[in-house]
């Protein structure tokens, strides 16, 4: 698993999701209950962890669909 994906997975499972719930790279995050507040928490985590501000064009629902889409968004900013 990509290290970025692993970091995101750990953060979401530890801080956002209920105990013992695990997600895969393709899990649709909205379907397991992630809401607008969760998205903000993820954005702030990305800022702190990767020293990265997601640009406006990536602050769209599609970016937060799954761990994979989040990872792709972060990679695109690091290029």
């Amino acid at each position: 698993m990509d290290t970025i994906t692993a970091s995101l997975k750990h953060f979401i499972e530890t801080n956002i999701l209920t105990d013992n719930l695990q997600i895969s790279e393709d899990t649709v995050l909205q379907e397991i209950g992630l809401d607008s507040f969760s998205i903000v928490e993820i954005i702030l985590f990305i800022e702190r962890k990767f020293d990265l501000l997601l640009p406006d064009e990536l602050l769209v629902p599609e970016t937060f669909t799954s761990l994979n889409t989040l990872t792709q968004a972060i990679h695109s900013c690091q290029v």
Partner: protein
Amino acid sequence: MSSVTTTNRPFPEKVYLSGSDCFHLVIDSHAKANKLGGNVMHIALQFDSVLPPTIIIDSLQQSPVIHWLCNIKLKKGLIFSKPYWKYTNNGREIIIDTLSSEIEKTIPTELLNLEMGIKSERFIQGTIVQYANKTSALVISWNHILMDGKGMGLLLNHLQRISSETNESSTEDWNNYFPKTSSSQRKFIDSLWIFYGVKTFIQRSTRGGFKSIATSKVDSTAQAVYQTLRFNPEETIRIDKRAREKGARFGSNLFLLASSIQSVQTILTARNNTGTIWLPIPYDGRKKNAQGPIITNDVAYLFYRLEQPDLKDLETTVLSLQTQMMDEMKINLPSNYKVFLDFMRYFPLWLYYFLVRVNSDKNFASFLYSSTHSNFDQLTNHFNGLVTEINIMAPVVFPPGVTLSFVRQNEQIIANIAYASNCLSEAEYEHLAKSLRINLLDL
């Protein structure tokens, strides 16, 4: 009928109130002092037919959660100790009344005016409403001190599980019902520091006061009025699309809030009484996908302060809300506010209420607002019936005298406006409702 067995644990004898629960004790005091409003919530599940009452009655009466809720007493504890629920095991069952109504999908006024304060013997009851057009509803009324909207959603899920015919027996986990006892290792001095930080933030956030629709005088003839606006699936899609067009990046909720703010602003403008708008906005503090706790208000708060430039138009308001939301989450304000509220539990209620009144000029907010987000999205069948609509009515709190609440379920949005009749005239209400529709739908 499925049988329900709990784990071997007995019912908990004592459950401490959370910080948010205790704030509802303050609202209870506020309602008594102002002789209007209160803390009673109502959830209405609308069915497309008349359900046999026995299915509903049996389901509610066999639930251990409902049993516990019907057999508790509020204990204030000794001075500077936390209030708690004491399980009394009086063998009480939930009261389930039956009412008739001519107009479908309405909650009868006598139910909306139900009194169920903290000195009541019961804090939850059910009512089956039968409408003239052969549809029906189950209305569960409860004192907000017991639980929040999310908790009620989880309770409905629990009732669904134990009433399902496919389950011959079901073992429910007590851990899901009650709040976990705090395992925080935080030192007292750290908690005190957080308390001080939050107090300073709130004081700064509310400096100079804020405007609301409430009149300043207590009026014993004032009534609570409840109105509902419904948006069909097509309109709901339009609202969500408009939310994105107006800059709401993280879902439609901030857009719903911005539209509400702008609508209240039109009333204040018409009265030549504009100024700062200040709002504490609750949201579910549970971890996502959790099945509990049910019995508590597990709520976090964000606080929004809007000056006149922020209220220029919808887009500007949405942007301001979004910016403030991110700034407050960056400094962990929601979790710190929970620490603050938990601290306040130790204050005697009279002192707690006094401090709130003194610091807020006797008013809690410009108006009250809540949204169930997607708590009931999946609840389309219950008690063997097709659920056509779920609505939650939040009570009026005076002052500020207006509560706006949104429910989203089954691809529809419902907006409820509860107001005190001494705060808004009928004409002003019509203006507020029209303004809300215009803001949401761009009519």
